């Protein structure tokens, strides 16, 4: 009896997929709405869904192909993330088009599965850095800017503030990181840059979840660094700012990674956050044309994702919109090759992302010139290596304090290739020959 019930349940769940209209493109929305990282998950998820809803409402989808999605709660937990992936991959007429895991851990867990299922993974500004080598990782796209690239831009920014890269010699930099795979990713690239520019770097780990940092900041006080790089996530960020205020470390010398630089990170720290600097590959704001369109066509019809309207245009929200633009533009690119107005498969989507080229002119058409930098992906380079902007918290909102600062691929690319080659060797993968790709 129990088995019959389960079978009936399974059928009932599978049935809506069968009856769905055929001219649809399914994009899973596997994010998180509960737990300590919910602001990031719900904000990003809200952005990507809002943008897809905009295309459906305003343009009737992409060349007539409606976008559909279904939410699945991953709790930022690897096991649940894998479960959501397995649940979503066969939905829609052509299966899952592309998956945004929105967690470095889940990205790692899905790398093998996505290759076997031919479903591309986009890890926008996170994930496995060496997957930028598309020859070894055909189905993984750490798009826009990966952690290592971002880090080189950060050191450049520090150099600019100090008055030139040669001034970095003898300077002290402390890297405070979340003690996880995500936090540790930038240690090697910092070490290499320290050698190159002659600064001293100290790595200090903060154990998960990071709501206790007194010992770490006492160490910072002893070192008296010129700059602190904060590589936090979730509750670790406001705690770091408060601890810095307690020991009197100037907040305008703290530079954060983009997962530490949202409104949700700064507001809980109150006054302690004033002056705090963060990197960003997307910029916040509700006044950009694309955001106004979302306001008009989606929220105007009462279909928006946020009940709390103050989150509209926040960093996480616009980052989700960037994810929406990248995803839908890649679908468009793939449709141009495999047939306009027809849903594409994951394999075709892979080609679409690999040949994605969002130019400045295209960004202007989309009304997103102020949102992100242009992006070009290739078989060799699955990242795009886009430049980074820096923002400062003024106590109320983030304001941009720099131009787009280019990343230093002369440092990053050899590291990526070496690391990817080691992975290929361990797994017995023969890298693709990019000159033979069409």
């Amino acid at each position, binding site marked *: 009896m129990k088995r019959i019930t389960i079978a009936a349940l399974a059928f009932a769940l599978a049935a809506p997929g069968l009856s769905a209209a055929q001219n649809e493109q399914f994009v899973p929305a596997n994010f998180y709405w*509960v737990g300590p990282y919910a602001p990031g998950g719900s904000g990003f998820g809200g952005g990507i869904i809002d943008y897809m809803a905009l295309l459906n409402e305003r343009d009737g989808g992409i060349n007539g192909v409606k976008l559909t999605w279904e939410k699945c709660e991953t709790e930022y937990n690897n*096991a649940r993330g894998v479960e959501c992936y397995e649940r979503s991959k066969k939905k829609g007429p052509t299966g899952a088009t592309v998956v945004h895991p929105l967690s470095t851990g889940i990205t790692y867990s899905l790398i093998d599965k996505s290759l076997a299922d031919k479903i591309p993974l986009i890890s926008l500004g996170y994930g496995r850095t060496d997957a930028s080598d598309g020859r070894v990782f055909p189905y993984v796209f750490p798009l826009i800017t990966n952690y290592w690239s971002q880090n080189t831009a950060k050191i450049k920014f520090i150099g600019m503030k100090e008055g030139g890269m040669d001034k970095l010699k003898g300077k002290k930099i402390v890297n405070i990181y979340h003690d996880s795979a995500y936090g540790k990713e930038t*240690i090697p690239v910092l070490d290499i840059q320290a050698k190159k520019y002659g600064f001293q770097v100290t790595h200090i780990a903060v154990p998960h979840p990071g709501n206790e940092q007194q010992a770490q900041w006492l160490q910072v006080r002893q070192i008296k660094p010129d700059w602190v790089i904060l590589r936090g996530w979730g509750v670790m960020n406001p705690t770091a700012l408060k601890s810095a205020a307690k020991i009197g470390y100037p907040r305008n010398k703290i530079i954060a990674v983009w997962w530490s630089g949202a409104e949700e990170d700064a507001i809980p720290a109150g006054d302690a956050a004033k002056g705090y600097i963060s990197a960003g590959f997307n910029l916040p704001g509700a006044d950009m044309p694309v955001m106004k369109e979302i306001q008009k066509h989606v929220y105007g019809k009462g279909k928006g994702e946020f*009940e709390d309207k103050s989150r509209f245009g926040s960093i996480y929200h616009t980052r989700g919109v960037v994810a929406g633009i990248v995803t839908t533009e890649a679908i468009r690119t793939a449709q141009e090759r495999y047939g306009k107005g027809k849903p594409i498969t994951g394999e075709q989507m892979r080609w679409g992302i690999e040949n994605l080229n969002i130019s400045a002119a295209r960004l202007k058409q989309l009304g997103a010139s102020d949102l992100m930098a242009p992006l070009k992906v290739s078989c060799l380079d699955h990242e795009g290596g886009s430049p980074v902007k820096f923002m400062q918290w003024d106590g109320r909102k983030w304001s941009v304090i720099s131009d787009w600062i280019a990343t230093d691929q002369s440092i990053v690319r050899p590291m990526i290739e070496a690391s990817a080659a080691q992975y290929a060797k361990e*797994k017995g993968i023969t890298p693709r020959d990019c000159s033979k790709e069409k």
Partner: protein
Amino acid sequence: MLYREAGQFKSSYGEDQQIFPIRQDRIAMALLLVFAFVVVPLFGNQYWLSALITPFLIFALAALGLNILTGYAGQLSLGTAAFMAVGAFMAYNFVLRMPWLGVIPSFVLAGLCAALVGVVFGLPSLRIKGFYLAVATLACQFFVLWVIQRWGWITNHSASGVITAQTITLFGYPLTSPAAKYLFTLSVVAVLALAAKNLMRSETGRAFMAVRDMDVAASVIGIPMMKTKLLAFAISSFYCGVAGALYAYTYLGTVEPEAFTLDLSFRVLFMIIIGGVGSILGSFLGAAFITLFPIMLNLATSGVSHALGVEVSHAVVSNLELIVFGGLIIFFLIVEPNGLARLWQITKEKLRLWPFPH
């Protein structure tokens, strides 16, 4: 009516001592095994196999390991996840550095490494017990993760501390499809569960239970404390280590040390508390409850909101799942503090009398 043992006579010691003395139990067990080994891989789809049943089996094995230590030998432990981590990371190193070894020897060696760590951290159990011992094993939890994160050799100097499981081959057949991984996991779990069941019926198992029930009395009747307690730690950690290796190789494929945090230790502990402390069946029931139930709940709520056409905010659904799950744990603990296994036992006893209870 069907479940009755009248007319089943036992005429030898062998018959009297078999695991399932009642014929109906033997038939049910055989059917279950046929179902698990033949029907499930033939008809189960990929989602069921790789996202639900395989992790359920792996957690059942880990819960079984903890049950040997906590349920049978009475030693409270919070180091389960650490032992799993040792198993996962050592299996990775054995496969990486000694590829000629083969999968099963690698997994056995990984389990033995976990057993060794278990013995070392089991040493305090000779002096302390109860909650104090739990704190000592908590140290193990943090120490092991710290070593894995700091000692580059273990992760083959991966910058992020993440390892990717290699493809494993068994008798020349690569274990890549969900069905193959499932069958491999099932075989390992079935063999180890059978071994555990028999172990608990042997002299060693009875020594464990004697230590659990009253260690002073046990030592008075001549049970060596040191050997028994450390053996319990070793066997339990071996099981957890193998579960960890399976977790890496047949389930997630890529593991980071953070996957094995204290949270996971607690989850396994909850599994045996809900399933039944000191019961092999309980380990499976508890694992099923903790791993599968939240997902079923999630599917059911979205199914219901679909069917009724009510638009419920997703955040509400996600939080509702946690609330209902927590509520059910409390409900079960109040209704049956001895776990789901005990409920099953009561059902069986009632069935034997049905339909004529006295």
